C-alpha cells in the first residue's frame, strides 16, 4: 500500500514535469530504438545471406582456380592455375560422389532483341547446372545433352533480361542477337532476387559451354566448376575425393600446394556470416553506446532535479519522510521514466525496422529476445543511474534542505 502510494507520488511528479520527463526519456528512447533497429538490420542481413546461400543450390561444391597461391608466390611452370574442361571431365568420369558437374564460363556482352538491347552476362554451363543450382524455369525448357554437345545457339534468359527485352510477351521462341550471332530463346529462369551486396542474380543468361566458347568468346576460360553430391552428408568425402582428382588432373607433385580451391556451402556461408556478424556486433556496440549516453542523461537530469527540488525534499523530510522514502521516490521516478522511455524506444524500434524492412525489402523481424533485453536494460539503466542522485537526495539534512535557495 505504501509502496503503491510512493509509486503514485513518483507518477504525479513525472506527469507534472512533462518537459523534463520527455528530455530525460529521450536518450533512452533513442538508445533502445537504435539497438532494436540495428539488431533487426543485422539479423535481416544475416537471414538474407543465409537464404542466398541456400539459393545457390543444395549439396554444392564450388571449385575455383588458384586461390592457394597465397602470399603471391608464383608456382612452377607445371601448374596451370586455371581450370580446364579436362578437369570437369575427369570429375565426371572418376568421382563416385558427384551427382552433377557443370563448368561455368562467363562472358559479358550485349543482347539485342525484342524491345531493344540489354547488357548482361552470359554463363556457359552444362545440363547439370539447373539441378546443381536448384534453379527452375518459369517458362520454356533447358537445353538438352545433344544441344550441349553440338553447341547449339540456344539461350535461357534470366528474369531481369526477359522483363527488359520482352516486357509484354513470353520470350520463348524469340530470336536475339549476341555479338551478331542469332540465338534462340528456349527458356526463362525463375527469379531469384538480389544478393546481400545488391547484385541482381536474375540479370544473367545461360547457354551451353561449347556455344559460349565457340560462337561468342573464343578466349573464355572456365571460372568455376560446380559439383553437387547426392546427399549433404557426402560433402566432406566428396571434397576430399575431388581434391585428389583435381591434383591428379593438374599433375601436382606431393610437395606442391593446391592450385585450386574447393569450397562447400558451409564454408561459403561462414565467410559471409563472419562479415555480417562483425557488422551486427558493430551496430550493437554503437547502439549500446547511445543507450549508455541515454542513461547518463537520466542521471544528469535526476541530479539537476535533486538540486532543483531540495526544498521539496526538505519539506517531505520535515513532515516525517525517512531518507529511505525519499530514496524510493526518486528511484521509482527514474525507473518509471527509463522503462517508459524503453517502451517508447521499442515502439520506435519496431516502427523503424518495419519501415526499413519494407523499403529495403528485408525481413527485419524484431525478436522478443531483443525486446526483453531492451526493457530489462532500460530498467537497469534507471536503477543504476538513478541511484546516485536518489541517495544524494536521501542524505540531505531536513533543516539544510528547507533553508536551501
Amino acid at each position, binding site marked *: *500500500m505504501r509502496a503503491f502510494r510512493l509509486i503514485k507520488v513518483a507518477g504525479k511528479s513525472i506527469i507534472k514535469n512533462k518537459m523534463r520527463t520527455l528530455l530525460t526519456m529521450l536518450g533512452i528512447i533513442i538508445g533502445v530504438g537504435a539497438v532494436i533497429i540495428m539488431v533487426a538490420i543485422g539479423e535481416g542481413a544475416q537471414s538474407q545471406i543465409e537464404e542466398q546461400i541456400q539459393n545457390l543450390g543444395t549439396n554444392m561444391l564450388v571449385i575455383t582456380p588458384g586461390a592457394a597461391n597465397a602470399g603471391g608466390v608464383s608456382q612452377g611452370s607445371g601448374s596451370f592455375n586455371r581450370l580446364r574442361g579436362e578437369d570437369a571431365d575427369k570429375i565426371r568420369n572418376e568421382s563416385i560422389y558427384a551427382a552433377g558437374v557443370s563448368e561455368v564460363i562467363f562472358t559479358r556482352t550485349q543482347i539485342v532483341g525484342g524491345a531493344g538491347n540489354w547488357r548482361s552476362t552470359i554463363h556457359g554451363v552444362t545440363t547439370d547446372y539447373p539441378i546443381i543450382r536448384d534453379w527452375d524455369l518459369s517458362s520454356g525448357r533447358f537445353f538438352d545433352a545433344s544441344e550441349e554437345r553440338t553447341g547449339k545457339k540456344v539461350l535461357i534468359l534470366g528474369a531481369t533480361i526477359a522483363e527488359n527485352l520482352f516486357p509484354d510477351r513470353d520470350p520463348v521462341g524469340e530470336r536475339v542477337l549476341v555479338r551478331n550471332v542469332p540465338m534462340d530463346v528456349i527458356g526463362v529462369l525463375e527469379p531469384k532476387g538480389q544478393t546481400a551486396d545488391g547484385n541482381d542474380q536474375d540479370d544473367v543468361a545461360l547457354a551451353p559451354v561449347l556455344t559460349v566458347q565457340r560462337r561468342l568468346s573464343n578466349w573464355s576460360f572456365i571460372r568455376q566448376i560446380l559439383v553437387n553430391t547426392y546427399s549433404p552428408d557426402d560433402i566432406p568425402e566428396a571434397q576430399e575425393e575431388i581434391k585428389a582428382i583435381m591434383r591428379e588432373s593438374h599433375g601436382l607433385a606431393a610437395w606442391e600446394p593446391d592450385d585450386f580451391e574447393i569450397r562447400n556451402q558451409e564454408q561459403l556461408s561462414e565467410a559471409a556470416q563472419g562479415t555480417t556478424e562483425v557488422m551486427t556486433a558493430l551496430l550493437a556496440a554503437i547502439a549500446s553506446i547511445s543507450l549508455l549516453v541515454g542513461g547518463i542523461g537520466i542521471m544528469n537530469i535526476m541530479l539537476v532535479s535533486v538540486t532543483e527540488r531540495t526544498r521539496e525534499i526538505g*519539506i517531505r523530510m*520535515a*513532515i*516525517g519522510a*525517512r531518507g529511505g522514502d525519499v530514496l524510493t521516490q526518486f528511484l521509482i521516478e527514474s525507473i518509471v521514466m527509463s522503462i517508459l522511455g524503453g517502451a517508447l524506444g521499442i515502439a520506435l524500434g519496431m516502427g523503424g525496422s518495419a519501415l526499413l524492412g519494407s523499403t529495403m525489402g528485408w525481413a527485419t523481424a524484431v525478436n522478443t529476445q531483443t525486446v526483453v533485453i531492451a526493457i530489462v536494460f532500460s530498467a537497469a539503466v534507471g536503477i543504476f543511474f538513478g541511484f546516485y542522485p536518489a541517495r544524494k537526495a536521501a542524505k540531505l539534512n531536513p533543516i539544510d534542505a*528547507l533553508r536551501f535557495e
Partner: protein
Amino acid sequence: MSESNAVIQVRQVTKTYTMGSNKVHALQGVDMEVQPGELLAIMGASGSGKSTLMNIIGGLDYPTSGSYHLDGIEVNKLSKNELADIRNHKIGFVFQGFNLLARTSAIENTELPLLYDRQNRHKNHREAARKSLERVGLGERVDHHPNELSGGQQQRVAIARALVTNPSIVLADEPTGNLDSQTTVEVMQLFQELNDEGVTIILVTHEDEVARYAKRIVELRDGNIIKDITQEPDSAADDLKALIARKAAAEAATTPSETETVDAG
C-alpha cells in the same frame, strides 16, 4: 533526570552556527520545560533564536550541546529514521513561510504527512485531509494550488497539514505573520480550541496581539531566556465575535454612501 512529566524538557541547550571563522551563538544555554496542555508563546526580537529553538524542539535540528527530552526520550540520541517518525506522529510543525509543495493542490499538501505514517492510522487519506482543511476554514479551496491561494490561505493549509496526523504537540513558527487582524484572531481561536482538547501548543510570535492568547510567554534575547511568565489568556472566540459585530456595524453605516458613490460614477 527529574521525575517531572514535562512533554518538553530543554536543558542547557546551545546552538552555534559556524560560518568560516565566524561563530554565531544562536542559543546560549536555554533551560525550558513545557507541561502537557500548555499554550506557550515564544517572543523576542528578530534574530534572538526563536526559530532555532523551535527547530530543535521539532526534531529538525540537533543542539550543539545540552540535552532535549521529548516525552522523556532523549532526542539527540535517536537515529535519523526514529526522528523522522517522531516528526511525523507526535509533532505538527507550522513553518515560518508555509513550506508548501508548489504545483500541488491544498488537499494533496495536507495529506502529505499521512503518506509517511508507518502506523497507517488513517485509512482514507483524502477524507482526513478534507476534514483538516475544513477545520481551518478552507473546505472550499481543497483543489487550489498554493499560487492560487492568498498568503493567509496558504498559512491555513500549512496549519491543516500540521493537524492532519492529530499530533499531541503543535509547533508554529510565526503562524500569524502573514495574516490580517481578523484572520489572526481566527487562527488563535483555532489554537485555543485545540489546546482545550489537550494539544500542547508552542508558537513563536513577536506580536503582543498574538501573545495575549497564550497561557505562558517566554521571551528570548540573544539566545537566552530573559523572561518566563504565566498569564490569564484572552479568549480569541470572544474577540472574534466582537470584531465581527464591529465590522457589521461599520458596514451598515457605510453602505448607503457607497451606493451613492457608485451611482454618481
